[in-house]
């Protein structure tokens, strides 16, 4: 019996979809179209907030993520880091995630070559991971040097570093850049540090966390959300530090288009079968 193409559309093997997606990635990466990118309100707000910080202010990078998330978040983090260096701000990072110290080292490796006159311990510092999650964040609000045990990620005493001057508690920082993907993350920072002590925070988030975090932005508990690779691309554009995110925008467009096309094809197949058989087909769900 001949099976109609529409019937097949209802139940393609997922591996065909995988293969098609991979093909689209290859084509778009090798032939970029260069669709225009506009800087959105969120990234503009974030940029202006950092732009307005006085020289010498401390910016706290909360590197609470791991290598799996680096691809999505690093472009934004790098662009913001570079912007901070350009504005002569001091960048200090600490993490509630065991991988956080390694992530800050990666960021430093990307940023340092462009600013040869900036020095570790003077302009930026990696305090690394400490256990305790939000309890450690609470300790940062009481006595920051004690909370980190007086040492940085590499075990060297922080008292020797000029960058620590004037930093007794985390409330002394001018801005928190929360690079967050899970728990502990943005909610913990809001509950323990930013909300009770009115410290402004910009979060760099993976797309999956954006919708969940939006209520905190709408209520004014966050300054801005720099979302995903797109946020990174916009920040690269507005700050003038070109990076890798821009090149990704075309692929995102076409991959989303691909998925939308598959969704539409699936629905055509679904309705065709329903029309033919008078009964529903395909994988059931109760949506």
């Amino acid at each position, binding site marked *: 019996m001949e099976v109609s193409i529409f019937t097949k559309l209802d139940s393609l093997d*997922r591996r065909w*979809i*995988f293969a098609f*997606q*991979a093909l689209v990635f290859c084509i778009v990466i090798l032939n970029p179209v260069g*669709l*225009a*990118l*506009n800087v959105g309100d969120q990234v503009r707000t974030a940029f202006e907030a950092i732009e307005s910080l006085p020289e010498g202010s401390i910016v706290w990078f909360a590197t609470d993520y*791991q*290598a*799996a*998330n680096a*691809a999505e978040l690093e472009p934004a983090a790098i662009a913001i880091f570079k912007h901070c260096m350009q504005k002569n701000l001091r960048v200090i990072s600490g993490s509630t995630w065991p991988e956080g*110290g*390694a992530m800050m*080292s*990666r960021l430093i490796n990307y940023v340092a070559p462009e600013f040869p006159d900036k020095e570790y311990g003077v302009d930026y510092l990696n305090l*690394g991971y*400490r*256990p*305790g*999650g939000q*309890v450690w964040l*609470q*300790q940062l609000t*009481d006595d920051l040097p004690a909370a980190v045990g007086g040492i940085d*990620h*590499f*075990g060297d005493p922080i008292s020797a570093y000029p960058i620590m001057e004037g930093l007794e508690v985390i409330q002394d920082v001018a801005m928190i850049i929360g690079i967050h993907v899970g728990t502990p993350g943005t909610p913990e920072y809001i509950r323990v540090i930013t909300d009770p002590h009115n410290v402004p925070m910009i979060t760099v988030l993976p797309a999956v966390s954006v*919708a*969940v975090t*939006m*209520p905190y932005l*709408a*209520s004014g508990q966050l300054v801005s959300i720099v979302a995903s690779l*797109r946020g990174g691309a916009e920040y690269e554009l507005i700050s003038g530090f070109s990076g890798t995110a821009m090149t990704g*925008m*075309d692929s*995102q*467009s*076409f*991959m*989303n*288009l*691909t*998925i*939308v096309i*598959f*969704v539409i*094809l*699936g*629905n055509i197949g*679904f*309705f065709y079968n329903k029309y033919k058989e008078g009964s*529903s087909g*395909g*994988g059931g*769900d109760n*949506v």
Partner: protein
Amino acid sequence: MKREGPIALLMISGVLYIVSVMLASPVMEPVAATLDDWYKIVVGFINLVGIISLTQVNGRAVLRKSSGWFYNALLIVVLYGYIILGLVGGVGNVAFTRIYDNILTPILMTIFSTLTFWIGSAAYRAFRAKNLDAAILLVAGIVVMIGRVTLGSAISPAIPKAAEWILNFPTVAGMRAIEMGAAIGGIVLALRMITGLERSFMSND
């Protein structure tokens, strides 16, 4: 002592902490700081539990020669090899960071990236307009999917606007209500713990 002791410790430490944080009393203030410090030390020193469990599970599989025991053996060898490498050489040691950056990182990133493919096939299979609820999910999803990428503004500036609106208003409302409910749920659970009503964490007799 097997049940009452832990419950008593839970209640005392919890109540002490709450009192010292909520009361504006200089006498109680250091109590919270001390408890914070202790908490961090306990958390920081129980981390080997995970490693012991990992060793147990995989070691047992090796000893029993269960199917695929080779992978379990490999895991244990690499785990302890890497720990020794790190402890001897320090955090900054080249081999230690090389393995993290050039072996772990690509694997982890790639595993994470397979989600793109899973998400594609899940969307294809599940986003069917079977009923009103599904149709709403589908339409909102498609508008946001197209509206949040550069292609959306290339087609029509109205699409990104619609996507932004969906995210800024109905989505914020829905998420906010979920968050408020979750806050209350968490507080009730905490109240049940601190009053000794919730004890299922001790049911491993």
